[in-house]
């Protein structure tokens, strides 16, 4: 069962060198409050496992990342993530690049304590060349088909962001897509849930099939109103702010100003700075 924690307590329980899975997809329902807290922490040498978006970008920008494990890194409405691009082009991060389906099979394997799962995805592509550790497996049945054995994507910790959670850590999503958040929760040794809104046990009203993450997989839960900002948390992405992020990220001086304004304080300071930015921009 999860216990109610603060953002600082969650990040304080992490260690450098850990493998951290991050839920959501691209620039959608990412646990950005927790990511921002890692950004301002002393953590380093992390392996980040993610359907990557600005979570990967921000952590690369802060030099927190040794390796990225991902099928893509994108901001969705802006195709390429500037910080991730820069890190790759500088050669400052290692990259385990998987097909999207392979990545899901890796999560499924880890979530179900299997060493690997077989799939055709990856065969014939350079995913096999750039991941020389990947192995294939031959079907033991009559077909004898050779398939990619996607290794379990195990992780020390998973961070996911829910629209609503109760104080025990049960989490509900309200958007159209659960992404793979429940698999991240099951694949990790420990899972921390951040949520836009926290309620008492028994008050998670709504269709039962939108209850995505169970307290049996959750170590801690933290309420972070606006904690998914600027990614899409059901009511749409803050596209204006994402454009501001991407434009700033493309230029070192502009990024220093962005980081100083938005990322130098705690989460409350971030939310306040965003509010002020919106007022200045007349949004």
């Amino acid at each position, binding site marked *: 069962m999860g216990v109610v924690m603060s953002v600082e307590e969650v990040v304080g329980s992490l260690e450098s060198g850990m493998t951290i899975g991050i839920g959501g997809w691209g620039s959608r329902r990412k646990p950005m409050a927790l990511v921002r807290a890692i950004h301002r922490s002393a953590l380093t040498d992390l392996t980040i496992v993610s359907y990557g978006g600005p979570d990967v970008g921000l952590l690369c920008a802060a030099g927190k990342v040794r390796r990225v494990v991902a099928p893509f*890194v994108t901001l969705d409405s802006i195709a390429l993530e500037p910080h991730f*691009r820069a890190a790759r082009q500088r050669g400052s991060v290692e990259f385990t690049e998987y*097909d*999207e389906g392979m990545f899901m099979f890796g999560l499924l394997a880890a979530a179900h304590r299997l060493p690997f799962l077989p799939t055709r*995805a990856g*065969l*014939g592509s*350079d995913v096999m060349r750039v991941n020389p550790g990947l192995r294939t497996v031959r079907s033991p049945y009559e077909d004898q088909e050779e398939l990619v054995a996607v290794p379990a994507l195990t992780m020390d910790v998973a961070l996911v962001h829910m629209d609503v959670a109760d104080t025990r850590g049960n989490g509900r999503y309200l958007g159209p*897509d659960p992404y793979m958040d429940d698999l991240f929760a099951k694949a990790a040794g420990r899972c921390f849930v951040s949520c836009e809104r926290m309620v008492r046990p028994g008050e998670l009203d709504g269709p039962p099939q939108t209850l995505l993450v169970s307290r049996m997989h959750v170590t801690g839960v933290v309420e972070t109103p606006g904690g998914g900002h600027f990614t899409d948390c059901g009511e749409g992405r803050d596209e204006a702010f994402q454009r501001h992020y991407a434009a700033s990220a493309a230029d070192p001086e502009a990024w220093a100003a962005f980081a100083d304004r938005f990322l130098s304080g705690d989460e409350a300071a971030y939310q306040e700075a965003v509010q002020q930015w919106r007022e200045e921009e007349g949004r």
Partner: protein
Amino acid sequence: MSATRAEVCVVACAEAWRGDGEILAAAMGTCSILGARLARLTFEPGLLTTDGGALLTAEAVPFGAPAGAVEGWLPFREHLWLVQNGRRHVMMGASQIDRHGNTNISAIGDWARPKSQLLGVRGAPGNTICNPTSYWIPKQSTRVFVPKVDVVSGVGHDRAAELGPRAARFHDLRRVVTDLAVFDFGTPDGSMRLVSAHPGVEVEQVRAATGFDLVIEGEVPETRQPTDEELRLIREVLDPKGLRDREVKA
């Protein structure tokens, strides 16, 4: 009515799904998305199309419009299972494509330290090895049509042949549509062949925008013109804001 180049491209994309029946038409890029929905509204009514997100729409909806009535749910996890299941024909983009149909959306230059990091392989490896696959390339040039792609994201015919007939039995590259022409791989060794040039485009122009030896057999026909009904559907129903013109300039 006379059609713009973008409208010719929308119809050429739509033609990729002709005969597919009741499968998901998965599309990337404006003209490709419009093409999938146009095919559904006209000659291929059994197709399933999305709202661009997790919803299978009850009817083909205008570009960028809300889903309206829904007939199914296809969040990413189900979409990725559907790739394995096979009832899907995807039309992807490509930053590089070679004559065997290998494509790259991952990185330009040396993968270990790319000159330009792009998206990552995304679903291209699985798509190409599991599903019928076509490509929509809005701006054909020798930068895109290259002798050899830097990273093989989508699997081409030479790579599929190396895997052998069993592993590659679902590999099925259908066609490539660009702003200039339509191509397929209907040659003995699966090399790319020019099928038709769009109205107003010379074969020489297509050849000049291609960085490898293109198979050209005899007289190259012209890509078909949209019908009046297709033009009406594109202009009045599917894309009244004219977003197709941003992708392919008039």
